[in-house]
């Protein structure tokens, strides 16, 4: 009888330990969720340094979420003096060094900014090791250091210094699979406020004489067929799946591009498909190339007479893999993803 009681107690103890271990494993992920929530829902005004490839630039970010309406201003404090201002689904890029303003508007129904985030779930977690490294202080704030390490070389990892009180990331590092830092952001100052006035979102750039370029947010209304349903990827890196399929006209362009989005829940890759311009010489129809913009990789190739370009905050091999796997079908594919 006593043996049975001891066995029961041991079983309960094992259960409790397992639960505790599970909770412990959950906690770093919860910090990631809190961080994403804080970045999108809080009102804040901060100055941070952006380091990448040996270059440092100071930027200011002002972010406000007022009843679900996101307004955000990102301004370069030195160098180019560029500013990006987002209001709802419209992103305005002020480029004083180019005397140009680009206005990017998401097509109607494309969903709000908040709705377009990748969803990090149990399945996604299988492709990363997420753990808390240590607790430390930055700018006299207590932070949790969370490391997100990819299990393979198809994605990058992160180290995040998350403020315990506000869940804001005071410092972030993007790292490759070997832990090498690719990009770093460190806040020099950060104010979390209840209210941020409209005046904080006005550009400081005087745009007299600037060229304004807008995209057409509703290309389909102009009678242009949505060809995005014709395109899909035959193969994807482990863990990636399609989440968005849409068509849009980019600023300054005349024709719409099909836009497919693939994600593993943390990293995402966009694939843009457009008809080759008649201006492109015929002898350039079958060559591919890779590129980088900051930590983002891009790969462009030509498939069935269409230019296919993959862009994402992933290693070059991943954008190459995905772009090269894109294929066109004769009939529109069944909606396997969020279509717009």
């Amino acid at each position: 009888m006593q043996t049975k009681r001891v066995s029961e107690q041991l079983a309960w103890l094992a259960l409790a330990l397992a639960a505790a271990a599970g909770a412990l494993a959950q906690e770093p992920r919860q910090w990631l969720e809190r961080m994403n929530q804080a970045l999108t829902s809080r009102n804040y005004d901060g100055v941070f340094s952006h380091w990448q490839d040996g270059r440092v630039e100071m930027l200011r970010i002002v972010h406000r979420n007022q009843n679900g309406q996101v307004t955000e201003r990102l301004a370069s404090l030195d160098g180019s003096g560029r500013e990006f201002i987002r209001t709802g689904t419209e992103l305005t890029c002020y480029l004083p060094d180019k005397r140009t303003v680009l206005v990017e508007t998401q097509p109607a129904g494309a969903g709000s900014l908040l709705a377009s985030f990748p969803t990090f779930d149990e399945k996604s977690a299988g492709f990363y090791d997420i753990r808390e490294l240590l607790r430390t202080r930055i700018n006299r704030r207590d932070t949790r250091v969370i490391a997100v390490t990819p299990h393979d070389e198809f994605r990058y990892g992160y180290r995040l210094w998350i403020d315990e009180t506000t869940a804001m990331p005071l410092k972030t590092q993007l790292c490759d699979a070997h832990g090498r830092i690719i990009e770093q952001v460190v806040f020099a100052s950060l104010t979390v406020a209840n209210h941020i006035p409209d005046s904080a979102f006005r550009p400081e750039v005087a745009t007299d004489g600037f060229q304004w370029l807008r995209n057409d947010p509703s290309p389909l209304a102009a009678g242009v067929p949505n060809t995005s349903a014709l395109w899909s990827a035959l193969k994807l890196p482990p863990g990636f799946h399609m989440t968005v399929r849409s068509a849009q006209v980019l600023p300054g362009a005349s024709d719409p591009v099909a836009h497919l989005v693939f994600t593993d829940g943390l990293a995402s890759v966009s694939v843009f498909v457009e008809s080759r311009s008649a201006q492109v010489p015929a002898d350039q129809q079958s060559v591919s190339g890779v590129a980088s913009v900051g930590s983002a990789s891009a790969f462009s190739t030509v498939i069935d007479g269409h230019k296919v370009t993959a862009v994402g905050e992933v290693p070059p091999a991943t954008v190459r893999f995905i772009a090269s796997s894109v294929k066109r079908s004769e009939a529109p594919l069944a909606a396997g993803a969020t279509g717009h």
Partner: protein
Amino acid sequence: MNEELDSQLSAMFDDELPPGECELLARRLSRDAVLQARWSRYAAIGAAVRGGNVHLSGRVAQKVSVAIVAESALASTPLPRARDGARAASPWLRGIAGVAVAASVAALSILWLQGGYSDAPAPLVARAPAPVAPAAETRASYVVPRSAEQRMTVPATELANYVVAHSEFSTPVSRRNLLSALMASEPAAAGSAEQSQSLGPNDDPNPHADQAR
């Protein structure tokens, strides 16, 4: 140029030369015109030193007639990628600040490299380095002879548009980083390149990385 020197230069461009050797080579680079020309070529053809074919997208965007073109990029000074951080790179970068190391790249510093998916080899097309020092003005542009080959570039503006459009579907941290990179992606004017490349002790991410590991 002897093979060893060539190899050292290649390693320096790839950020694989030890810092001490970098400094020595940088000093030599600052006074050796032949070496400068070779370095400029490396800067221009980027990864071609590893055997790939390269085209720098220094052209004005074809579809979009906007000001985001190469006009100021022609005066920019892109520096080689410091894959392991600026700690190793900055000393010798400073050492060669007066040397014309820049290739003309498109606005937003977008470097397109030919991939291996073409049946035909692509041509090497490169422009002259941007004149950072007066001496650089004497070097005319050069074009590697064109053969019956193909090349393709995506205009820089178009790629910038893609990045902006893509950022809408990234995580908050990724989006902020992508847009920040676009903000900072074009090198400053040649004269200020050194400043923009230099890191203060608080800005070097590597010590923090060690701490976090």
